[in-house]
Each structure stands twice: as structure tokens, then as C-alpha cells.
């Protein structure tokens, strides 16, 4: 694989417009990735779903080269209707459009950060891969005291032109003091076997609010990995919602550092999986100072041959007294071939804390089905009603009404 990586990298350098300095930078990341390769089950974080095996099985001829000099046509049919929004359109590995026309232009700044190093410790070779092969890296800055009027939707889209390719996207965000950003990641991939690797870095200043909704609803054969690193200042709030349903493989990783007092992090997720899908959510919430709070709720509904995994870790530093941490994961297994794995982890070094986790998995409650059927619903309807109710719980956690309705529409959940 290392020869291919090297030759694909050389091709990338030839076709792109990177400066020499940027190329040197990327070379370092490439070197790291060649050394470590794809993560595998020997690493604790990849125990349940081994990405190196999954890639081998699904994409035998993975290529890392992506021609950033070619532009792609935007297909307007992918755009979300009925909600005014700002756009970043990302097609076949390339950002085709950044559009903040609905906002005050003085309050939003976009800068090139290709040369910026990654500022936190990570043991994740996929971030090296991302940094080596991604295009120009942009940072989006929301200035002090500005709340975006409309949400930002990032479209992640691939079409038939691209196949068996590794696509990398990296974006940095900075939310100034008392600012607010609502961000929707919207995946509309047609069925091609690509490996999509997304890395976001968020920096939340004092009193800022980040709401990130990841919607992967439409069935496709891509493999996806997404990593969010969130640094939080005093009194900041981050809310992450993950709908994990469309891709063959999708692993969402959230690493959240609560660096400021009274900061809080919320992670809510839904797995709704059908045939042969394998999805995972892994969260790490680091409570580093006093009076921080985190809340996580993950629910799975698992169909035939599907597999979901949830690894949630709450870390509480010895300084972080008065921490409030909570994790709950629930799963409904619909078929004898479905599988649910969980590893809810607590690592606590402070004594005045309130931390708990719960995990439950099982089949649909026959008594409830009986109850509904005795009131005139058929078996299928009762089942759907129960599943809807089970998942609705998570959707209801979304704090933005407009987006909540949008997501309800996308999922097809009825109240």
C-alpha cells in the first residue's frame, strides 16, 4: 500500500497548486500514515469494527488520488428545500462553493489554514491520512457577538464519476465570544464505493454555542469516517446530533474538551440500520475544569445483519469537581443476525462528581405490541409505532425547532 500512497501523493502534488511549504507539511503527515497504516482491531478504539478489514473487504482497489484541479457541476436537486440556509458544497472531494450570502459579511471570515498544524494530541492515523491528501484547508470564523441568522448546511456529495477513492475533507471553525453557529452535515451520496474521511476542528470561545447535526439518511455504499474535535471555553455549549443510517459503514467520533468552567456538551445519536450496515459512534468527553456538564443519549434500531457499536468515554480530571456526566445507550435488536456492542467507559479522578451510565439492549417488547394490536393496529404498524416512539426521544432533544422539523421530515417520523 505504501507505494501506492506515495505515487498517489506525487500525482496530487503535480496536479494541485500547493506551495512548497505546504507540500513539506503534507509529506510529514504522509510519512506518519505510511508508518501506521489504517487502524485495526488491535487498537482499543477500533476493537468492535475494524476499519482496515472493512476497507479491504469493500474496496479492494482504493486509490488516494483526487484531482483537485477539476471542478464538478453542482446538481441542484441535492439542495435542501423549505429552509433558507448558507451552503458549503463539497462534491467528489472538492469544495465547490462556499456561500454565506444570507449573513452579515463583516461578521464571517474565511481564511486559508493549510499550513496550520493540528494542535491537539491524537493517536489516529486517519487524521494523518486526511491531512496528507486533503485540499486547501479553510477556517471559518464567526466573529464576536454574532449569531448566524440561518443555519449552515455542508453538502457531502459524490456522484458516478468517482469510484473506490479516498476522499478527505477538513474544515476548521472558530466561534468568537458569544456567537452561535448551527451546522448541518448533509450526506447525499449516490452508490459508489468510496472512503470518505472528514475532520472538523471547532474552537468555541466564551459563551458561544455550536449546534452540529449530522444527517446520513440515504442508503449508499460508501464508507465514512468523521472526527469532530471540539475545544470549549467558559460557559460554551456544544450540541451534536448524529443520524447514522445511510452508509455501509460510518464511524462518528466526537472528542470534546471542556476547558472552560460551566461549559457543557451534548451528544445525541440514532442508529437506524438495515442489511449489512456497520456503524459506530465513539465519544470522548474530557471534563477538565470545575462545573462542567455532559449528556449523551444513543439509540439503535438494528435490522438484519447489521451491527452498531457505541463507545462512550467520560474522563474527569482531578481538578474537575462538581462534574455532571451522563451516558445512556439503548438498542432494539430486530433480527437474530443483528448485533449491538457498547463500551460505556468512566474514568474519574475527582470525588465530588455525579457520573453515571446506563446501557440496555433487547428486542421489542411483545406486551406493547400486543397492547397496540388489541387496539386495532396490525403487527407491522405496531412495530413501526414503537420504533418511532423509541427514536423520537432522541430527535426531541434537538433544541432548534426549525432543524428539528427538518430532521423529522427527513427521517419520516410523525408525531
Amino acid at each position, binding site marked *: 500500500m505504501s507505494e501506492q500512497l506515495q505515487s498517489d501523493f506525487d500525482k496530487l502534488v503535480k496536479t494541485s497548486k500547493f506551495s512548497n511549504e505546504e507540500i513539506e507539511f503534507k509529506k510529514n503527515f504522509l510519512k506518519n500514515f505510511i508508518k501506521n497504516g489504517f487502524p485495526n482491531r488491535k487498537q482499543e478504539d477500533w476493537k468492535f469494527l475494524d476499519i482496515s478489514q472493512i476497507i479491504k473487504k469493500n474496496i479492494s482497489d482504493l486509490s488516494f488520488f483526487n484531482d483537485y484541479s477539476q471542478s464538478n457541476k453542482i446538481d441542484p436537486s441535492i439542495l435542501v428545500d423549505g429552509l433558507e440556509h448558507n451552503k458549503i458544497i463539497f462534491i467528489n472531494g472538492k469544495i465547490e462553493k462556499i456561500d454565506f450570502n444570507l449573513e452579515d459579511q463583516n461578521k464571517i471570515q474565511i481564511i486559508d489554514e493549510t499550513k496550520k498544524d493540528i494542535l491537539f494530541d491524537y493517536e489516529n492515523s486517519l487524521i494523518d491520512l486526511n491531512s496528507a491528501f486533503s485540499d486547501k484547508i479553510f477556517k471559518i470564523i464567526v466573529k464576536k457577538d454574532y449569531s448566524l441568522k440561518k443555519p449552515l448546511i455542508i453538502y457531502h456529495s459524490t456522484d458516478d464519476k468517482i469510484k473506490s477513492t479516498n476522499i478527505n475533507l477538513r474544515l476548521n471553525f472558530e466561534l468568537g465570544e458569544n456567537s452561535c453557529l448551527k451546522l448541518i452535515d448533509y450526506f447525499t451520496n449516490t452508490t459508489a464505493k468510496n472512503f470518505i474521511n472528514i475532520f472538523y476542528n471547532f474552537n468555541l470561545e466564551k459563551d458561544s454555542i455550536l449546534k452540529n447535526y449530522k444527517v446520513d439518511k440515504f442508503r449508499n455504499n460508501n464508507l465514512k469516517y468523521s472526527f469532530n474535535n471540539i475545544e470549549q471555553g467558559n460557559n460554551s455549549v456544544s450540541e451534536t446530533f448524529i443520524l447514522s443510517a445511510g452508509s455501509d459503514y460510518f464511524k462518528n467520533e466526537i472528542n470534546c474538551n471542556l476547558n472552560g468552567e460551566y461549559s457543557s456538551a451534548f451528544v445525541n445519536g440514532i442508529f437506524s440500520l438495515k442489511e449489512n450496515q456497520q456503524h459506530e459512534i465513539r465519544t470522548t468527553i474530557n471534563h477538565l475544569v470545575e462545573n462542567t456538564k455532559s449528556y449523551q443519549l444513543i439509540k439503535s434500531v438494528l435490522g438484519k445483519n447489521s451491527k452498531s457499536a457505541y463507545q462512550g468515554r467520560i474522563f474527569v480530571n*482531578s481538578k474537575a469537581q462538581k462534574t455532571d456526566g451522563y451516558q445512556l445507550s439503548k438498542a432494539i435488536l430486530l433480527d*437474530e443476525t443483528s448485533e*449491538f456492542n457498547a*463500551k*460505556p467507559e468512566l474514568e474519574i479522578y475527582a470525588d465530588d462528581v455525579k457520573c453515571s451510565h*446506563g446501557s440496555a439492549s433487547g*428486542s421489542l417488547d411483545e406486551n406493547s405490541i400486543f397492547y397496540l394490536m388489541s387496539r386495532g393496529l396490525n403487527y407491522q404498524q405496531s412495530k413501526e409505532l414503537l420504533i418511532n416512539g423509541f427514536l423520537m426521544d432522541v430527535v426531541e432533544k434537538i433544541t432548534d425547532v426549525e432543524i428539528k422539523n427538518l430532521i423529522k421530515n427527513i427521517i419520516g417520523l410523525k408525531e
Partner: protein
Amino acid sequence: MDTREKDIEKLKDYKYGFTTDIENIKAPKGLNEDVIKFISNIKKEPQWMLDFRLKAYERLKILKEPNWQKPKYPKIDYQDLYYYSAPKSMKDKPKSLDELDPKLLETYKKLGIPLQEQARLNGIAVDAVFDSVSVATTFKGELTKHGIIFCSMSEAIQKHPDLVKKYLGTVIPVTDHFFATLNSAVFTDGSFVYIPEGVKCPMELSTYFRINASETGQFERTLIIADKGSYVSYLEGCTAPMRDENQLHAANVELIALDDAEIKYSTVQNWYPGDENGKGGIYNFVTKRGLCKGKNSKIAWTQVETGSAITWKYPSCILKGDNSIGEFYSIAITNNHQKADTGTKMIHLGKNTKSKIISKGISAGFSDMTYRGLVDINSKAKNSSNYTQCDSLLMGNKCGAHTVPYIKNKNFDSNIAHEATTSKISEEQLHYCQQRGLNPEEAVGLIVNGFCKEVLQQLPMEFAVEAQKLVGISLEGSVG
């Protein structure tokens, strides 16, 4: 001075910190084929046993020491250990208690288990292990009447080779992980229990382990077989003398329950935990595994872990028979610089299998405590269920409490529920107790005992009292 204070006084100078001055026969230092042959030879073992050991040794050569655990320890030089040592006066085994070396008897007296008295008064058969060779087995007569075999492992190899051959290594194979395989290669002695079909063992069986000679790894091997419809409750209590260097204890315990049989295995472990600076202490790396082989069988582990510098063990149940039940009750207390990484594995293979895990962890001082557990429900284990509860209590902000459960559900008919909480003793509770006249230490003792109650009540009477005291003593000085 009331009894409580006396207990504290005793603890300050570790009560069991003495060395019995008996000349030892030692195998040459180091680990190699010759040492294994030496051990096998001195114990007059048959060829198949030696082959078993050598097979394990072959495997050991390619195995690596695991290093995924939370408590790290300095590298152990396995070539720098003695793998066999026996009190010399044991060369010609005594026929009865009266023939025992008076010094040995004295040791047990200090330990609080005078053999004769214990045997007569408590009605417990004690298979006392002094370093590596069983000293004496009491209450044999009573047990023989029921057809129960309770003897040392070496005796079982001589007298009941069929049983040993049939079951040894079936739950913990020679090709298991590093420490289990090490044990298979060099184990010295241990207990062997066989309960025949339909017999309910009339008394609690008990072993007191004791590590004595300096620089001796203790490699116990225990095998308990409960035949169809039988019941046995086995107690294991441990103490070790004070030593500066760390000592390795890598025992293997195998339990096998056939149809309708039940095994209850209780442990109270208060080995030397090292001094308050974390110097010395025992490394307790034990492999304990039970196999519910038959239908409707049941295995219950109960453990109270208060000692050892590092405790690293996961008493597990493999629920193979349909309708079998596995239970795990644990209290782990760490103080000063102690570290524990303990929990259980419940592997559901049969239909309608049930398991329950109750784990209580208490950490104080600079200690670190990890609950690590696995619940794995196989796709064939229809209609199985598991309930897990693990609670941690922290005292002070220099210690750590961690929970790492692995949950794997591959069966849609099965239910798994897991709950965990971490908290400290609330000011309100303390205030309430103190208001009613208890001093702070008593109040903490009371609250902690309440916290542990669910586990303590699983212990047999004799142990429950001792364990309750131990819980209080282990936490002395941590309230402040």
C-alpha cells in the same frame, strides 16, 4: 480501647507480616525445561502431567505478557524467580495434625486459624497451603463419608488421575493468556475438590493460602468439579507476610459445574498491599474461570478484595449449559498506592442463561480502581439476560475510579441492562450519622458497609463478619 481501635492498631503493623524460619527446598532460580522437570520430579508426577507442563511451556515461549491493563508495573524478570519451594520438614508428609512442625502450627495461630481448633469448633475443613505444598487436610473423615474428594492437587494427581486428566485445563486451556499458561507450566500445588452426583457438601470448604519464602512466585492451581445435582461452597482466604520487593501470584482456578450442580466460590483477599508509599506488596494476577457445563447449573463468585499492591483478575463464567446461571459479587477496596483492575466476564452460550453482576469499588488515598467487565451474549443464547450494576465510591481527589464495561449482544431475544454510578459519601449522610453520635470514622464505616451490603450478604457467615471488619479497617486513615 474497644475492639475497633485494636483492629486499627493491629493494621498499623501489618498483622501478618512475619516470616516463618523454616529451611526451604528451592528449585534452581529461573524458568526453563529443567526447572519444570525438577518440579514434576520432586512431586513424583506421572508422565502425562509433565507433558501437560511442557506443552504449556512451549506455548509460553511465544506468548507475550499482556499490557492493556490500567495499573502498570515494572517488568518482571521471570528468570529471577524461584518456581518451587517447600518447607523441608514436609519431605516426609505427616500423617496427622499432631505430627506437624510446631513452627508451622505457630504460623497458623498467628494467622488466626489454629488448625485443630478451627477444625473442631467451626466445622470447616481446612486445606492449608503453606507456600507451595499442602500442609494438612482436616475433616477428611466426614467428607469421605459423603464420597467427597477434598485434597491437595498433588495428591489428586497421584490418587485420582482420571478425574484430573479429564478436567484439568478444560476451562483454562494451556494455550490461554500469558499468566495462565505460566501457571500451567510451573504450578506447584493447590486444592482439588470433587463432589459426587447428588451430594450436597455438608460444610463450607476452605483454604488459606499463604506466601512465605522470599522471592517465590506463588502458582496455585485449584480445580473444583461439582457432579450432577451436587452443591459446594468454597472459601478462599489469603494473607501474606510483609516484603519489600513485589511478589507475583499467578494462580489458576477452574470450576466445573455439571447438570443441576451449583458452586459458590468466595474469596476474601487481604494480602500485603505495600506500605503507604507504595513500596512492596503482592501482584495478584489470578485467572479464575468457571464453566457451567451442564443444564441448570450455577456458579457464583463472591470476592472481597482489600489487599495486594496490584489486583488484576476477572473471575468469569462460561454459561454453556441451557438455563445456567452465573453470578458475580465483588467489593474491591484500594487505599494508599494500591491498584486494582478487576471485574468479570459472562459469556452466554446456552439458551435461557442468566447472569448478574454486582460490583462495588471504593478508592481512597492515591489508589486507582478499575472495573472492567465483559457481557457477551452469543447468537445461540436465546432468551438470555444480564443485569450489571457497578458503583464506585471515591474518597478524596487523589484517587481514581474507572468503569470499562464491554457489552456485546448478538441475540435479539436477549436483554442486557447495565448501570453504573460514581459518587462520594454525601455530606448529608455524614452529617446525619454524626448528629446521632457517631464519630466521622464510624460514620464512614457505617455508610461504606451499607454501600457494600448487597455483596457482603452473599458471603457465608464466617466470612461475612471478617469481611465487614476488613472493609472498615482498609479505609482507616482515608477520612479526613
